[in-house]
């Protein structure tokens, strides 16, 4: 039985509070009737109402959602392929540079990846806009997907695949019928991560976007550069709520999957 010392308990408590307090404050202030942070004008939802009327903002939100959906799905597909190649294909030729290209974007500063992709699009004379952002986000996210799925595959019991093949399933059938269902939680989690990364990204989107494809973070950024505003607080609170509900729903689903049988391993 591990004992939790006071110091440990305190670190946990302070740590978690530190993480959530700023968000909590932000949400509270989105209901501030007064425009000024210094003055508390009572509870009000009129900033949320103002949001609904803000067409450019809603447009940006919609664009962000579309970009996120498409790039997350593409990234999950590519990233899963990459993970399978890294884990199951042994030491194939060109493995080292392949792995390098997968791990590098994880840590590369976004200004560099954003800048380089923009210069690519200019060099091949492609008009920047919706699709260039999608391509950029896919490239960035597939590396995260690869790392997560790879971690799960490494843990995966190979004898299950051998058993499937022994019983007559070809390698492709084995993957579809045995491997995939069992790593599905990891794939789903990485899809959500790719979605969140895309929805959230400012720097890369700024470099690779074009007219008519303004994403929500770009819009928010241009507003908050000028200072704090309650409308922004409202937007952010909504986004926090949406993401919070999604994550909680996802973890409940995973637990449900576990209860019904089969491991819920991530």
């Amino acid at each position, binding site marked *: 039985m591990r004992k*939790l010392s006071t110091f*440990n308990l305190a670190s*946990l408590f302070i*740590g*978690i509070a530190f*993480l959530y307090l*700023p*968000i909590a*404050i*932000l949400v509270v202030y989105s209901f501030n009737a007064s425009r*000024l942070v*210094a003055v508390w004008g009572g509870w009000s939802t009129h900033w949320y109402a103002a949001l609904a009327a803000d067409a450019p903002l809603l447009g940006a939100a919609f664009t962000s959602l579309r970009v996120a959906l498409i790039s997350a799905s593409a990234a999950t597909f*590519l990233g899963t*392929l990459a993970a399978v*190649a*890294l884990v199951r*294909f042994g030491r*194939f030729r*060109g493995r080292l540079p*392949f*792995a390098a*290209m997968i*791990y*590098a974007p994880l*840590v590369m*500063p*976004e*200004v560099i990846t954003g*800048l*380089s*992709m923009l*210069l*690519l699009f*200019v*060099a091949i004379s492609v008009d920047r806009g919706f699709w260039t952002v999608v391509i*950029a986000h*896919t*490239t960035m996210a*597939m590396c995260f997907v690869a*790392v997560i799925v790879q971690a799960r595959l490494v843990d995966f019991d*190979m004898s299950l695949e051998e058993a499937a093949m022994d019983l007559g399933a070809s*390698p*492709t059938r084995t993957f579809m019928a045995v491997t995939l269902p069992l790593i599905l939680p990891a794939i789903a989690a990485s899809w*959500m991560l790719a979605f969140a990364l895309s929805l*959230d990204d*400012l*720097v890369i989107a700024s470099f690779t976007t074009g007219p008519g494809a303004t994403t929500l*973070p770009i819009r*928010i*950024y241009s507003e*908050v*550069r000028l200072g*704090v505003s309650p409308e*922004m*607080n409202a937007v*952010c609170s909504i*986004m926090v709520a949406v*993401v919070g509900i999604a*994550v909680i729903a996802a*973890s409940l689903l995973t637990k449900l999957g576990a209860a019904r049988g089969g491991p819920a391993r991530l």
Partner: protein
Amino acid sequence: MTDAHRTRQKPYRSFMAKLVVRIPYAWLIAFFLVPFLIVLKISLSQTAIAQPPYTPVFDLAAGWHGIARLFAGLSLDNYAFLGSDPLYFLSYAKSVEIAAFSTVMLLIIGYPIAYAMTRTPRRVQAVLVVSVILPFWTSFLIRIYAWMNILQHDGPLNRLLLALDLVREPPVWLSTNTAVYIGIVYSYLPFMVLPLYATLEKLDESLLEAAADLGCPRWKAFWLITLPLSAPGVIAGALLCFIPAVGEFVIPDLLGGSRTAMIGQTIWTEFFANKDWPTASAVAVVLVCLLVTPIVIFQHQTMRGVERD
């Protein structure tokens, strides 16, 4: 080698299997490697007031003549320019300094949190992991903006400090280095806590029990056993935070001021404000060169984690 340790290799490689490698490989070469080479090339070019704002342009139609013209037009002028103006050197130095200091702070704050997480009962641990990740799912921009709210001159932090009588006048937080530190530590904390937690969680309890059995007090066992064995997690977490922090843009831009011109901001300014693509590229290339050693170390660490299985 016993019967249990044998290489489990797929002996049959089909066409489908080759595709599995080639598709992501091709994508990464096209959208990751090639762009880098283009950045390199442009950093060796000169500014031009046109779209695209640089010369020489690579004209495929001109054939060999075009390629020759391309190489003739390359120059190291931009790099010379970087060397001549102290602004750039200071920017690099500042970025490394801020990133390094933040990483140390992250270690100091993150380690106890990760350690405390491993000491909780198993079921609580899953919940804790989700709670550490949850803020990460919410927008990065939002979280920095949240700190803008708090650190304002008449914001809640100052009001708390005044109420507790810790200061006489509300201090200025925004547009200072301190605000940048707070922002970086706040945003990158999950990146430090999770690798640390993953490593600490795998630690074999019986090692500590053996130490106790041999007469080692708890704090000493921590210092001699837990800490060294958590080194891979420490390195992974530190690099995962340090490397991107060096090139950070949003945090210094929103929380810092003109006094904290980190290199990410410099690239942004050169590119969007000055429309000087060659210089921006040169700055980016130098940054990559600066970071290449930590990046290689990071990749080596990550690969080792996979190889071991």
